[in-house]
């Protein structure tokens, strides 16, 4: 029996790679129907008791407001991902540096960012980052809350992208380095022209996966009263009289919203992953 027997590819199952093997659009569609049905049922129940507009009608009234909040979730997720990608690649390159003084601290930072709960990182950034910083020319750069929260979300993702890069570079066979060296490439030239281009394909599915995870974490911004989807939904319920009948439809709607956005990404990532798995 081969030595590979009795083992699983661990990464395939961690929460950090949450797309399971059978992402399938039909399941997604079925779930949406179920969501919609339970939403309708819940609001029908509420409607029987009250004279005020039915929960579903209330939801429709507040929907644009919630969607506006959701747009902010998306903006935060795009920006945070962009920051995380740039900084994460930098940190990842530092991690594979040959200089110990560069490598060791970057490993430590990566480890710290990956292993702290997101909420704790959020608190640190939100409470300890100043409201503005003064630049030398007496100019002030403001940090509104939503910028701060974007930075906070970027940090854990940055740590993980750094780790993806390190893993991808390590997964390139040493023969590639050696043959580049044999062709008189310097280390950085080999990295730039030989190694990194081969890493990109491997790194794209986990990168998308982290984008999805990041998006799923953005509701945490509501803790800091940032007007994203969850806080707007809560504000809407409050304004509509805080009736208990509203709770299920509103929260189900939020779940649906994220599901509709994330699920296609999951399907797409899975597809790419399969394609690349066949390719290698």
């Amino acid at each position: 029996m081969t030595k590979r027997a009795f083992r699983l590819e661990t990464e395939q199952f961690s929460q950090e790679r949450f797309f399971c093997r059978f992402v399938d659009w039909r399941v997604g569609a079925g779930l949406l129907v179920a969501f919609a049905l339970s939403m309708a049922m819940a609001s029908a129940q509420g409607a029987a008791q009250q004279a005020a507009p039915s929960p579903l009608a209330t939801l429709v009234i507040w929907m644009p407001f919630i969607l506006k909040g959701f747009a902010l979730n998306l903006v935060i997720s795009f920006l945070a991902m962009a920051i995380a990608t740039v900084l994460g690649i930098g940190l990842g390159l530092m991690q594979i540096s040959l200089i110990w003084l560069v490598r060791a601290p970057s490993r430590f930072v990566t480890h710290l960012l990956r292993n702290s709960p997101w909420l704790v990182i959020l608190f640190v950034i939100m409470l300890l980052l100043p409201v503005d910083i003064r630049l030398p020319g007496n100019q002030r750069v403001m940090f509104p809350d939503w910028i701060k929260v974007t930075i906070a979300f970027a940090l854990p993702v940055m740590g993980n992208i750094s780790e993806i890069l390190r893993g991808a570079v390590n997964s390139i066979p040493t023969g590639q380095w050696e043959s580049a060296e044999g062709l008189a490439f310097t280390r950085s030239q080999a990295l730039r022209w030989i190694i990194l281009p081969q890493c990109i394909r491997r790194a794209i599915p986990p990168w998308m996966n982290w984008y999805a995870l990041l998006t799923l974490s953005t509701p945490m911004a509501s803790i800091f009263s940032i007007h994203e989807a969850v806080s707007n939904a809560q504000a809407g319920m409050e304004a509509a009289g805080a009736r208990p009948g509203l709770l299920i439809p509103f929260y189900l709607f939020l779940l649906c919203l994220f599901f509709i956005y994330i699920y296609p990404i999951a399907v797409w990532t899975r597809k790419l992953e399969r394609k690349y798995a066949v390719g290698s």
Partner: protein
Amino acid sequence: MPSAPKSRTGDYRPWPDDKPIVSLNDVHKSYGMVEVLKGISLDVKKGEVICIIGPSGSGKSTLIRCINGLTPIQKGSITVEGQEVNDPKLDKLSLRRKVGIVFQQFNLFPHKTALQNVMMAPVLILREPKAEVEQRARALISKVRLTGKEDVYPGHLSGGQQQRVAIARSLAMRPDVMLFDEVTAALDPETVKEVLLTIKELAADGMTCILVTHEMGFAREVADHIYFTDLGVIVEHGAPAQFFTNAKDPRTRQFLSQVL
């Protein structure tokens, strides 16, 4: 668990020497549309060593797996000590206690040591006293020349060693017939010899053996009777001396010219 006998010595009556201990009669087996066995008949007498040879995909492994009921057949009959294998009411446990099988891939239990692998079935299934089983298991392990490896886990044994543990594991159930399904096919050339030696000793002790093998030299040396199968039928059979030198069927001759 159905009333397990304390020990099988109680109800054990030796099978008479003259009647075939394993008998196949017009066995048919197909997987979906593909018929892999198209009417196989053969008899094995007690103490005989039978080798089944033939090109890959000729249904040899399927044939051997049918004999202990791992693969059900569609038509025909297989009897082991007079017991019909294909009978839906068959007590599979009583059949499998009589028929041991050793696989190409050893299939040891990787979470148990060599000794535990050998002891597991007699202790758990036959409910025999542990001390007695352990004694027997140690004797079997030394018989397959693995003394000193009792407490080693399969993952730390070489392929040949694992295969010999697998043989000891089957023997611990005190079978009357042993089936060997290409047991050397997955081994490194240098460890093949030790496994073949073990089987040879077993045959010399009078164990009834049915082997599927690609080792022609070995087949010639140990077999009492050789069967050549191709495309699901027995093309030719005979004693080794006559079979290897004097094959009649052109298919057999072609096969032999390729492998010898």
